[in-house]
């Protein structure tokens, strides 16, 4: 393993216990260009992001809106594959110390082999996984021991429709943070942070969960970042970052981050 001193879960825990609000950035690996993965990670570290989610592109991203769908299609067209991404990440821990999470759909992981996938994650220094279509019960029944063996944290989603009982179950199954989907939506849909969202944010805050929450979906500027983090530890920006990459490429990253969190 080429990772630095910190074990993966520690790298995540260190980031999550920082004071202040956390900014996590999602991007699709292989977009806009196949070889952009490492330059993007370098820039995000330099720009002061707190956490990164690297998206493994999938042909049929059910939970994603048009922006991330399109970036996935282009990334696949550019030749991105699971094996390719791991090759690109080889040695990343010599340059980047940000916590890194791989986010993708379950089928490519299943085809790679769950165990082989987790082993490669550990080898290159990945800290956690987000697999939106791997349900909690299936994870608990079949895969938890594998992730634990490789020191990977599994991050679960909750939405405004998730019951309190289910949220507590998810909190118990988590070991880093909870991904709080801001509204009933696919990615990139901004339904506003109106009273319904505020009530949802407050409800979750009042549950006093063991793990911090990061809010994602529909966050793209300083205002939505502030609104989302009033009651949560941090927020995740995806589609807006993809649009930035499309328009300005890697060169635009630093000023983008500065605008979100002056």
């Amino acid at each position: 393993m080429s990772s630095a001193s910190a074990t993966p879960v520690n790298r995540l825990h260190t980031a999550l216990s920082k004071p202040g609000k956390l900014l996590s950035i999602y991007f699709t690996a292989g977009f806009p260009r196949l070889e952009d993965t490492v330059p993007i990670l370098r820039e995000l570290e330099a720009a002061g992001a707190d956490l990164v989610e690297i998206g493994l592109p999938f042909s049929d991203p059910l939970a994603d809106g048009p922006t991330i769908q399109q970036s996935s299609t282009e990334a696949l067209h550019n030749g991105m594959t699971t094996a390719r991404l791991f090759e690109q990440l080889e040695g990343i821990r010599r340059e980047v110390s940000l916590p890194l999470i791989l986010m993708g759909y379950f089928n490519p992981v299943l085809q790679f082999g769950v165990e082989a996938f987790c082993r490669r994650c550990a080898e290159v220094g990945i800290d956690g996984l987000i697999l939106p279509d791997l349900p909690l019960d299936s994870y608990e029944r079949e895969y938890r021991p594998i992730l634990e063996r490789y020191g990977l944290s599994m991050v679960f989603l909750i939405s405004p429709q998730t019951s309190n009982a289910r949220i507590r179950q998810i909190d118990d199954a988590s070991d880093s943070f909870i991904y709080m989907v801001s509204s009933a939506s696919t990615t990139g849909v901004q339904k506003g942070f109106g009273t319904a969202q505020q009530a949802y944010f407050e409800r979750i805050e009042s549950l006093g969960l063991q793990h911090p929450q990061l809010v994602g979906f529909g966050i793209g500027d300083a205002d939505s970042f502030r609104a989302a983090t009033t009651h949560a530890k941090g927020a995740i920006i995806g589609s807006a970052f993809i649009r930035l990459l499309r328009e300005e490429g890697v060169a635009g990253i630093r000023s983008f981050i500065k605008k979100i969190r002056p």
Partner: protein
Amino acid sequence: MSSYHVDENGFYGEFGGAFIPEMLYPNVEELRTCYLDILADPAFQAEFRQLLSDYVGRPTPLYYSVRLSEKYGSKIYLKREDLCHTGAHKVNNTIGQILLAKRLGKTRIIAETGAGQHGVATATVCALMGLPCVVYMGAVDIARQAPNVARMKLLGAEVRAATSGSRTLKDATNEAIRDWINNPVDTHYIIGSVVGPHPYPDMVARFQSVISEEIQSQLQEAEGRPDPDYLIACVGGGSNAAGAYYHYLDRPDVKILAAEAAGKGVDTGESAATSALGRVGIIHASKTLLMQTDDGQITEPYSISAGLDYPGVGPLHAHLFATGRATFIPVTDAEAMQAGRELAELEGIIPAIETSHALALLAMGSVPKGSLAVINLSGRGDKDLQTYIDYFKLA
């Protein structure tokens, strides 16, 4: 319950389950916990049965096909689902699901469609119940099934084009699932085949099982025995097949044949023959056989038939294939088109091109002479006239 039916975790052997994003968990969980109780409710059954008889026109005939029988040297019966209101078996399921949606208090309906038959059947029951309806349809299918697009619009539904991927059934299903994620409270998603997360495959199979229930008693009446030697259906997602097989799954003497779309040929790269080309994976929240790359990306299928142009197959069928209970036979575009034309000329019935794939097994020699065979005639071919015209240069 035999091993061919779904288990308490929502699996058929290793296939099935509910690989859904958490955003859909409450909806799917609500269905999972309610569907068996609702289906068992006598008031629900009474309403369902009444609509199937008075509105859909059930029971559909089991027609002894004299000239096909003569030609192929077997006794061949056709189960006439093409005579259902709206022209295909799809309406059996949409009647069931709309009644279920009403009991769940849902006020908006969405659906995906390939050939447009399920879209029409959904738009129809939404008109009947006064519910707004949005149907997602691949842009390619909108072009090749124009009459059904017009029918849906006339029935008051909104047809939204799916423009991603291969712009066919798979992509329409993606869009419908995304709509559901965005509208989880008021909306029910009427899936059109035995695909998707548990409990959909089982629920849809139960609604369609009226087909085999009727075949059993009709065959008993006609032949003095409930069981054919061969039972044949085409498989896209597999709903007409699931309905035709349902009450025969545990009767091992009945040989089950499944016709799948080979497109231009299994090895041409333009095919939708899932059992031949698929490997275990996850599509539309179900673990099943699907066509995919080594990297786990879902492959774009091809078939002349919009209703069979799907890279996966329902988990029940993956299980029937894996256990050998059903024999899957790939049928090319050309074989299907010839079989469709043959039925038109011999029996005066123009079948849907999906159905033509099942009929093609006769000419392909899959049914030994002297057998008693039932073919599920899943739908009529009005929607496919343009494809028949272009293919046979009839204009």
